[in-house]
């Protein structure tokens, strides 16, 4: 079943296209991520789905109903705000109960729902605290609990982990994914972090300058990027030009060959060696071409490469990904 349908939605601010016409269907229970650099329009799209922005053109459907003109407080979805927007004068418990109170749910039922939400987000011992008494990660959990307590059809998340440090992000990423599976709610997630998008999503929409670059599963996007932007924004990539056009080869698809041997497609000089433990990366300056290539070698390669070594590069035809533009 389709949960959200965006039909040709478009947003202009002062005559400028912030979001170019976009059509997109999101299935029930899907984890969909809007991925792109800042200013790409991803937050605007999310705010249009939430109802805080009106599309200049187009329609928004939620669970089979047209909601384009429905105000945010009447849409059966909830937003987890970028900076949480927790109510500072209410305890954790009161924050979580707020949406239920607005729906005039009976007290006993509110208590039940709050209990459920704090259990799922491991906030039980912090129920009576105020937001300012919580760490960033805990506040973020309250924001999520406050949203899911309403059992919305869709949960919208606007860079929910953006303000947290790396280790905490990693932990919360897996918690979020787990939560989404447990709840079965449709998640629409906004981020600029491509790794986060890859790890969490069923499908990713890559946006750039208000336009969709590609929509696909993480695997499709990594293995077969359709545009130059998609090829370089998600994961590392090497872009080569040939008479037929541009093509991309991922660093881990490039192998080494004897310099100037018949099996070498390109030859170059090692400019830098980066050791990461599980892989090491070589930056190679190509000869006769003003271009640097990155290649990743796995542990099996125990050769110690030196800066200045001349090496040949090779890859298989199937690993060449032709890019549209």
């Amino acid at each position: 079943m389709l949960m959200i349908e965006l039909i040709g939605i478009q947003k202009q601010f002062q005559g400028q296209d912030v979001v170019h016409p976009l059509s997109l269907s999101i299935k029930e229970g899907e984890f969909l991520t809007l991925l792109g650099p800042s200013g790409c329009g991803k937050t605007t799209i999310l705010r249009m789905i939430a109802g805080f922005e009106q599309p200049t053109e187009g329609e928004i459907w939620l669970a089979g109903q047209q909601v384009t003109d429905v105000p945010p407080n009447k849409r059966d979805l909830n937003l987890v705000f970028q900076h949480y927007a927790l109510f500072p004068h209410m305890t954790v418990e009161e924050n979580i109960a707020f949406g239920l109170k607005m729906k005039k749910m009976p007290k006993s039922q509110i208590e039940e729902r709050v209990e459920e939400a704090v259990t799922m987000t491991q906030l039980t011992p912090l129920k009576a605290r105020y937001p300012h008494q919580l760490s960033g990660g805990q506040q973020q959990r309250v924001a999520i609990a406050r949203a899911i307590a309403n059992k919305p059809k869709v949960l919208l998340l606007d860079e929910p982990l953006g303000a947290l440090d790396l280790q905490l992000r990693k932990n919360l990423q897996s918690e979020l994914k787990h939560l989404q599976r447990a709840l079965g709610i449709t998640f629409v997630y906004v981020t600029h972090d491509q790794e986060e998008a890859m790890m969490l999503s069923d499908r990713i929409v890559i946006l750039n300058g208000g336009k969709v670059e590609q929509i696909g599963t993480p695997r499709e996007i990594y293995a077969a990027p359709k545009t130059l932007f998609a090829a370089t924004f998600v994961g590392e990539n090497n872009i080569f030009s040939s008479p037929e056009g541009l093509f991309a080869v991922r660093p881990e698809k490039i192998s080494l060959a004897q310099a100037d041997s018949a099996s070498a497609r390109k030859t170059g000089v090692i400019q830098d060696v980066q050791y990461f433990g599980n892989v090491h990366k070589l930056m190679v300056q190509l000869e006769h071409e003003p271009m640097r290539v990155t290649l990743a070698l796995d542990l099996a390669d125990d050769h110690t490469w030196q800066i200045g070594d001349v090496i040949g590069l090779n890859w298989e035809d199937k690993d060449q990904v032709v890019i549209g533009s």
Partner: protein
Amino acid sequence: MSRHKLGMAPVLLWLSLFLIIPMLIVAGISFLQRDALGQLVFSFSIEGYKTFFDPLYLGIYWDTIVLSVTTTVICLLISYPMAYYIANAPPRVQTWGLILITVPFWINFLIRTYAWILLLRTQGVVNTLLMEFGWIQEPLQLLYTPGAVLLGMVYNFIPFMVLPIYVALEQMDKRLLDAAYDLGASKWKAFRHITLNQSKSGIMTGCVLVYVSTTGMFVVTDILGGAKSAMISNIIQSQFLGARNWPFGAALSVIFVLTSLILILLFNRAMQARYLKVKEGGA
């Protein structure tokens, strides 16, 4: 920590030199006596406090509290919508709004208050207009009434209420409102549960400022209230300057400072109750 305390030293010095010590002196005088010429006599007496319980003074005391509370409430009712409008207006309108609020301060307070006489007196602007329109036959007695005093107070102290509330509203995180709408709150409920609470500090500051200023104001009463209306501050002033009964004036001052403190404390207690308990039933 000690550096922190050191930094407070000038403030403490200022407070003790110009507030605490003078107040102690006043409190001390309130327990003294005076001789026939009005000179202080250094012997203990509670005569000043006894005089206060004269029904005449009790009546004035009560009137003063009623007038001050009324002024505060009216100021709040007028100022909140003003502050709300200014705080939510585009930046240009905000700047102009704030300028307009503060413009009256550019003119001496006495002159502004005297100007009301021109408006309110029997042949004043208001009466003349009303008679022109034929709405009244006889000029109304507007000046030298309790209403005129109330008007003068409200007029003078509205900025004291608007500015703190404006600051609180302006500093409020507007995303909280988005969050409230997202969670199903209507505009009114979001205002009640979020905006009102977030502007509480401004309401408190404004109310205390207006209340305390009103109780201490004797000029407005003199100018617009005529001889008939008196506030406790008028009595205090006349005891010190006219009647030369310093012990009584001091006793009145002490009683009034304590009354104000108690009222403000009670008010703060009520406001501090975490939620502004607006009746849930009306939701």
